[in-house]
């Protein structure tokens, strides 16, 4: 976040805005804007008593203590404070507030009311206050102002003094920097950290419970009281505290939630309420107030204001009251819809409250319909009939019949949704990608009944559909799909991906290469799939690696060698096929260089197996994808940009970016003995093969205490001294020890062309993630895609040249604390975003979104389906079948009894019966074998 150089100017500007806004509001109706009890002063005071007692709970010996309230308003809490405390100071930025407070509380020697500057507590003296409070005030102040006040409160509090504040914690709200009305809500941990930073010790945080709802937990907002004590100052500045409180900073420039909109709306609602009570004069005042801010309010609200004013002028008050159904007037519809929307779907309400275009509404005999870009989203003349037909047809669809929840893509004028909820009692989720359409629908039709009935109402294109869960079915309105094909595809992808993860249980095989660095990734991939509760079978081909080398070494002639290698790969490929015939699968994930030919991939695809290639290599350097891409339904690459298109053009079904990752099960910091540190450690280390660019660059580091581990390094000087243990191949366990034992781990992406850092390098190698997860400090060469994965330089330090590297080595060797901090941040990030489980989840999402129906049908027709369905009658047997299925076993008796045979302990009756069947089978097999062998 950029902080203005002149921070004092910023604070003064914000304070002036606060003062203007609150002066205006209090001048209109101090009770309404200051209190939830606004019918009379009596209500104002009793609400003050209530809040005061909650806020000050547990504060003893009040009569000896001094009290200060920040944002005292008209003195709602000062009155009870005067009764309890020895000295009371009220501070407020609004002139109207302080004046009114003096008027309402009268002269009192114990009381001092201060018109503040809006960001400090001047002229209150240092260390003069025992108890400071702020209730319903901080949450409508800009974050920088809050930070400034916290430091000020710290200043005026006596050592050990108490601070009680009321605030909102939970999901951060996007509030404009100069907004003085919308609630600010901060993450709980950020609030704690910021208060700590400001020099306070946290006693407790408790939810604020009032007779009406103060928290909005559905929206992730909780109202709380925080109790603090003054501690030592930390030296933190306003900007740092504000940044801690709200790391992304507040919204500036373009307005997302205009204050005026809310203020105008609140005044209108108030006016409306007064109107209903027949308090015409007060209603007029409310509308006048609305008028004062209307210029900044949205067009819809202005329309409504005008409508209400007209009614007021006509004396036709009863017409202004909302009644049910279509008899509602235009503005009543807006209000009614908005009310329910705010109450049930605050996020949608928030998104729609922004200014924006509205789709065209045209009228038919059935009612209004929505038009956009020349396309009618409902039937242009008979929307109700068309909706009926659509719903009838949809509900007959087999996949809809079995669903437990219906997700409808496309709101339009909602006739189809009304028909749907009329005929069907299942939960309905509505998704409307186009805000213009949603605004038009909400402005033209009374959708209150619909909004009351649907379980979710999602608008816009950035939606998280993970929560839709099992059993849901997506119904796409063709018009909405035509209008927003990409949004529809994204929703489908997200929806089917998420649903696939919940519902599908295909069987995977992960086929690894014969040798090389990708080999361990096969294990990581399989392990991640298991962590995602998928059924997986790793196919380890490493045992065939030595024969491959033997063939390579035996033949000298290139042609003979490549022919033999080809034959060998063909043999292995057939072996894979045979093995997969014995234990069939649904999805085959091939790691780069897996020994499988197009012929076998074609055969597997013919059998309905989905083929996936995770091409974890530089597509420009290793071009064999050109021959194999066409045999894969999905190719995942570690590069973006032209790579995706190029591979797609080579015939691959779909191509997606999916970087490599770490496996925390292996890639974690390890505790090492002194001997181990001695063996594996060094000031500077590098693990990897001796590629050209590495040789070039590392030769120049020979002066350093530097160890190189790995194969293919020259044996000449200086490498004879640097390369460890004869340049042997290391196991992943050994890497991890080196990472943990070294002060600086170098990570230079390989290049056969460059002499050092490849300035065009884009993808991030697995080592980057592995080092990060090991909490090992690394210096890695700059890669174009690295900033997507790590925050540089907070989580990762990069170098761009030989000189840069040398300089950074020297710098960081001297700074162990800094290294530790970066390594820690790096690990946190790796665990949060870059594990194989994250990657595989993403991969499955992509596959499931495209192949959901295919896999679902395959699952339903699979041998397991019948077994699982029929076993339901026998609970224990069913559990056993389900476990065998989850383990990825074949639907055979052997799978059901394997653990009974190897296990100990008493057998249940079901186990006895299964074992009985197993013994029958074995005996018959044995008898047949004997007969055939001896006859």
């Amino acid at each position, binding site marked *: 976040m950029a902080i203005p150089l002149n921070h004092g100017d910023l604070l003064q500007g914000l304070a002036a805005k606060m003062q203007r806004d609150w002066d205006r509001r209090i001048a209109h109706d101090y009770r309404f804007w200051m209190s939830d009890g606004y019918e009379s002063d009596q209500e104002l005071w009793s609400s003050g008593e209530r809040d005061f007692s909650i806020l000050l709970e547990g504060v003893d010996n009040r009569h000896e203590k001094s009290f200060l309230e920040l944002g005292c308003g008209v003195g709602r809490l000062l009155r009870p404070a005067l009764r309890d405390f020895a000295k009371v100071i009220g501070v407020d930025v609004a002139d109207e507030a302080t004046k009114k407070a003096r008027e309402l509380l009268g002269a009192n020697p114990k009381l001092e009311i201060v018109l503040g500057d809006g960001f400090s507590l001047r002229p209150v003296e240092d260390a003069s206050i025992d108890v400071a409070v702020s209730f319903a005030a901080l949450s409508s102040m800009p974050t920088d102002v809050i930070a400034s006040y916290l430091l000020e409160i710290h200043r005026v509090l006596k050592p050990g003094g108490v601070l009680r504040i009321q605030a909102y914690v939970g999901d951060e709200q996007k509030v404009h920097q100069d907004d003085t009305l919308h609630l600010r809500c901060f993450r709980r941990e950020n609030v704690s950290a910021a208060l700590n930073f400001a020099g306070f010790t946290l006693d407790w945080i408790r939810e604020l419970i009032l007779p009406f709802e103060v928290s909005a937990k559905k929206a992730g907002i909780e109202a709380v009281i925080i109790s603090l004590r003054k501690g030592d100052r930390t030296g933190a500045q306003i900007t740092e505290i504000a940044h801690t409180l709200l790391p992304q900073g507040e919204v500036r420039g373009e307005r997302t939630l205009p204050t005026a909109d809310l203020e105008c709306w609140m005044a209108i609602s108030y006016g409306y309420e007064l109107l209903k009570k027949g308090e015409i004069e007060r209603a007029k005042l409310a509308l006048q107030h609305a008028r004062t801010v209307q210029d900044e309010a949205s067009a819809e609200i202005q329309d409504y204001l005008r409508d209400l004013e007209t009614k007021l002028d006509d004396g036709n008050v009863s017409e202004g009251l909302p009644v049910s159904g279509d008899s509602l007037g235009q503005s009543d519809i807006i209000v009614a819809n908005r009310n329910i929307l705010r109450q049930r779907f605050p996020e949608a309400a928030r998104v729609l409250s922004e200014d924006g275009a509205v789709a065209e509404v045209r009228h038919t005999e059935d009612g209004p319909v929505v038009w956009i870009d020349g396309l009618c989203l409902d039937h242009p003349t008979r929307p109700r009939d068309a909706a009926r037909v659509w719903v009838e047809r949809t509900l007959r669809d087999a996949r809809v019949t079995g669903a437990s929840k219906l997700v409808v893509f496309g709101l339009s004028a909602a006739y189809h949704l009304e028909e749907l909820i009329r005929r069907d009692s299942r939960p309905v989720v509505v998704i409307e990608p186009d805000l213009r359409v949603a605004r038009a629908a909400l402005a033209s039709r009374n959708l209150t009944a619909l909004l009351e009935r649907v379980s979710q109402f999602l608008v816009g294109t950035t939606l998280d559909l993970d929560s839709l869960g099992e059993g849901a079915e997506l119904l796409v309105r063709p018009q909405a799909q035509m209008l927003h094909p990409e949004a529809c595809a994204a929703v489908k992808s997200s929806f089917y991906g998420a649903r696939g993860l919940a519902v599908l249980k295909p069987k995977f095989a992960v086929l690894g290469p014969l040798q090389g660095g990708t080999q361990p990734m096969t294990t990581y991939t399989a392990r991640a799939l298991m962590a995602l509760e998928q059924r997986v079978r790793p196919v380890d081909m490493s045992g065939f690696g030595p024969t491959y080398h033997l063939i390579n070494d035996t033949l000298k002639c290139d042609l003979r060698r490549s022919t033999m290698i080809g034959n060998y790969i063909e043999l292995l490929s057939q072996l894979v096929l045979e093995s997969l015939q014995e234990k069939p699968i649904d999805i085959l994930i091939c790691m780069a260089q897996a020994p499988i030919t197009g012929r076998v991939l074609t055969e597997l695809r013919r059998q309905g197996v989905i083929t996936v290639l995770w091409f974890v290599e530089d597509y420009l350097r290793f071009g064999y994808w050109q021959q194999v891409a066409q045999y894969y339904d999905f190719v995942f690459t570690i590069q973006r940009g032209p790579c995706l298109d190029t591979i797609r053009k080579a015939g691959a079904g779909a191509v997606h970016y999916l970087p490599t990752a770490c496996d925390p099960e292996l890639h974690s910091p390890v505790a090492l003995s002194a001997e181990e540190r001695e063996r594996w450690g060094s000031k500077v280390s590098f693990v990897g093969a001796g590629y050209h660019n590495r040789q070039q660059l590392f030769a120049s580091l020979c002066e350093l205490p530097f160890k190189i581990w790995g194969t293919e390094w020259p044996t000449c000087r200086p490498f004879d001294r640097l390369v460890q243990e004869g340049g042997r191949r290391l196991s992943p366990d050994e890497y991890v020890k080196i990472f943990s034992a070294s002060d600086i781990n170098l990570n230079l992406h390989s290049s056969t062309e460059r002499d050092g850092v490849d300035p065009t390098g884009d993808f991030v190698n697995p080592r980057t993630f592995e080092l990060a997860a090991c909490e090992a400090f690394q210096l890695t060469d700059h890669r174009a895609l690295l900033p997507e994965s790590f925050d540089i330089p907070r989580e990762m330090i990069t170098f761009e040249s030989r000189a840069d590297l040398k300089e950074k080595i020297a710098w960081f060797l001297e700074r162990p604390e800094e290294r530790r901090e970066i390594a820690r941040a790096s690990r946190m990030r790796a665990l949060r975003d870059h594990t194989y489980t994250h990657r595989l989840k993403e991969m499955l999402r992509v596959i499931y979104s495209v192949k959901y129906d295919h896999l679902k049908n395959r699952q339903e027709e699979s*041998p397991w389906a019948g077994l699982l369905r029929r076993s339901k009658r026998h609970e224990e047997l069913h559990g056993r079948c389900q476990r065998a299925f989850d383990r990825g076993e074949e639907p055979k008796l052997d799978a059901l009894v394997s653990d009974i045979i190897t296990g100990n302990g008493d057998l249940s009756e079901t186990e006895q*019966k299964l074992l*009985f069947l197993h013994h029958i089978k074995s005996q018959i097999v044995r008898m047949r074998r004997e007969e055939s062998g001896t006859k």
Partner: protein
Amino acid sequence: MKKRYPHKDKVLLVNITRLGDMLQATPTIRGMKMENPQCHVTVLVEKQFEDICFTIPDIDDVVALDLGMTVRSLAREQDGIIDAYEYIDEVVEDLRKRQFDYVLNMSSSAYTALLLRLIGVPRQGGWSSDSEGHRVIESEWARLFATSVFHQNRQFNSLNLVDIFRCSADVEVHPPSLVMKVSPENKEKMRRFIADQHFTNTGPLVAVQAGASQQKRQWAPDRFARFVQILTREHDARVIMTGSSKELSIIEPIVQACDADNVKIAAGKTSIPELGALISECNVMVTGDTGPMHVAVAAGTPVVSMFLASAFGFETGPYGEGHLVLQPVIGCGPCNPNKPCARPDCHDSIAPELLAKLTAMRCRGDVTELPPDFADPRQVLIYRSEFDRNGFLDLRVLNGGSLPPSRELLFRNAYRKMWLDDLGDLRDAPGAGMSNGSSAGPRGRSSLAVLDSAVSGIPEIVRAAEKGERLIRDLTELIKNTNAPAAALGRVSESLTELDREIEQLGYFIEPLAPLTRMFVFAKENLSGTDALDLASQMERVYGDLKRRSLKLEAYLGES
């Protein structure tokens, strides 16, 4: 005779597999009825043998288990598993409802053992399962059954399995033969069948069962052909070839090589009850160790039987008086039933001429003696089946007079006496053996026994058993002493484990002692319960049994 469960009212006999097994159970079934005419007997059989049960008298009820369908369902995998599971569910439920008070399972298969557990009948004979699914054998006789069929021990056993089976079910009174029903209708039908063959010979009617269940037990068709030729040409015999239609490939070449007028095929043309009726019309049946052999015995027709390869006459020979058994004398026989044989030399021990001569003799009447030099006892031993004074079948050799007794024979005889004495409280002659090993009678030893290393191994076993008893006493003291260090308990326990391993090894090193040690191992496998003192007392009994039996065996060997 000592009995575990002398009185039974409602019995389930688990006898799943073969025709022969079913018929061999008949003395037991009939015996139960003889001892308690009210006893209700249900038999659980494999579906394809269900019909045989109707030819067996005294069976009150039959439950058929369709193994074929079960295995087909399982082979279908997928939800076939559920079909199989639900089928087994039904069978188990049906059997439970019948509320048996005793169940006898003499099939050693793991699944029948589990079935017993599932049915949950408290009184059991033979193989069952413990709560963890391991096989257990409660009855001593059933353990002897298991010990005797253990390949290494077979040569030392002369008790017919029918008798061991019977004793496992505590049946003492029994018929002196296998039994089956032969209905007058079938008898008449078979008489017509024989008449329709229009034999030109007028001599004895001989049934020949040429087929065998295993390749290595299959006497070659050309030998059979030679045998039949001699019978028809030299003895005026009429021959009927029995068997199933599957065996026609063996039978047809035999018939083709013979006098077509007097060799006729019944194979594949008769049901099991009809086969019984047919054989009952014959003078003699010539066969290997086959199901039809037991049919002949049950139908009352004398049998001349060849026990080739793994077949052993003492073990499964014709259960009845006066049948003849030919047992080749060969170092490798009786061989392991589970191993194929590429060169069955034992088949050469029996010449077609010898078999024909013996058959002709048996057709003329009971053969109680053979002329000297009738057959070389170094090649083949010819036995006559007869019952001993306790009603147990034995085989008396008819051609062995000129040979000194072999080591196997001496041990076989001694074991026979010892088991009857120890398990059945039955002694061959008054004063023979000992009622208790420790109060030994005269410990006379034959010269052979003194020389035999096997005999010298017995004291080793006795010493080991006594050591076991001592260790158990120590263990019991330690268990009772609550202050005893755990390490001491551990040491004793380790010593016991080591001792048991030594005892088992003695059986492997000294073959004739293996039946003793095998019985010991079975007994140990059957220790049950969780109370340490109770387990210790069970173990003490096991060592006591081993010691007593060893001493008895030694004494009986001395008598020989």
